[in-house]
């Protein structure tokens, strides 16, 4: 499990533009470097980051979607520094859950969730 540091305001006013920050601990090994013994270090990269927003479904609503809307995505390649940091913005319209996920080499598939309250 990679360690993450996600920063989202706990609450936001309706239609406020909020900043979201996501830092993840990852070596982003390019596959081109060699160890001090001369062996090629195997490639280990995060390939894709996505952030989705799942609105909180009102109890009397018939909506069933839980996948949410994609609000930000990034594709990573070699030459991105270790421990990549991203920041992006969202217009907060309704309360719900932000779902962050990092996917990549060696079966990396990590998901973190943070809830957002829109008053």
């Amino acid at each position, binding site marked *: 499990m990679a*360690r*993450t*540091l996600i*920063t989202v305001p706990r609450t936001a006013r309706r239609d406020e533009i909020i900043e979201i*920050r996501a*830092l*993840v*601990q990852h*070596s*982003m090994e390019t596959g081109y470097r060699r160890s001090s013994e001369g062996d090629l270090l195997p490639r280990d990269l995060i390939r894709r980051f996505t952030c989705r927003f799942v609105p909180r479904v009102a109890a009397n609503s018939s909506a069933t979607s839980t996948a949410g809307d994609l609000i930000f995505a990034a594709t990573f390649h070699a030459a991105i*520094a*270790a*421990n990549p*940091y991203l920041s992006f913005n969202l217009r907060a319209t309704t309360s719900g859950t932000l779902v962050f996920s990092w996917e990549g080499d060696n079966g990396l598939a990590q998901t973190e969730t943070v809830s957002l309250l829109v008053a």
Partner: protein
Amino acid sequence: MQPSTQALQKDDTQNPAMLWVKAGEALWNKPEGAAAKSCASCHGEIGRMKSVATRYPAYSSTQAKVINLSQQVNLCRVTQQQVSQWPAEHESLLGLEAAIAKESRGLPISPPTQSQLADAQTRGEALFNQRIGQVDLSCRDCHETLAGRKLGGNVIPQGHATGYPIYRLEWQSVGSLQRRLRGCMTAVRAEPYAHGASELIDLEAYLAKRAAGMKLETPGVRP
């Protein structure tokens, strides 16, 4: 240091070293050993470690020698938790050291008054002034006489160890003061002392005396 590097250090939501601090804070509460004791079992919440890091290196009466903060952490692991010590530069050791030192952020570096520590500072100062390596430069030559000048693309800093453990962009990870010092020795093509060597502790003790009164800024970010 460039404004962008300073900005990275100042903002806890961007400073990559905070990933290590966070891990260290989790370890603080993790039970270890047969007695299942965590650091918190004996020391309480980590906030109680406030100002501790400003006093290290310090003389330990149980060890009868001067030790640095990471050695104290390992000491508690071995003598209190009865588990094996972490090797130098171990992620967990750096994490705990960073988490403890962060509790002293903004406080002045304050080496205690101890005769054994004073001896270590004196030995450290002699090492600091001694020319070493094929390049034949002392720490003082670079960090006092040539401070502010350039070495390759880097500005030579005054060499005040106020932010350790640091996240170094070149390392792409967190590392200890000893790793930094060994780097300076290799840079002048001198044989670096081994991790934990008494000479490195003496240098650390002198650096703390030299930086006394400056504010601790762990976790620092450096180029």
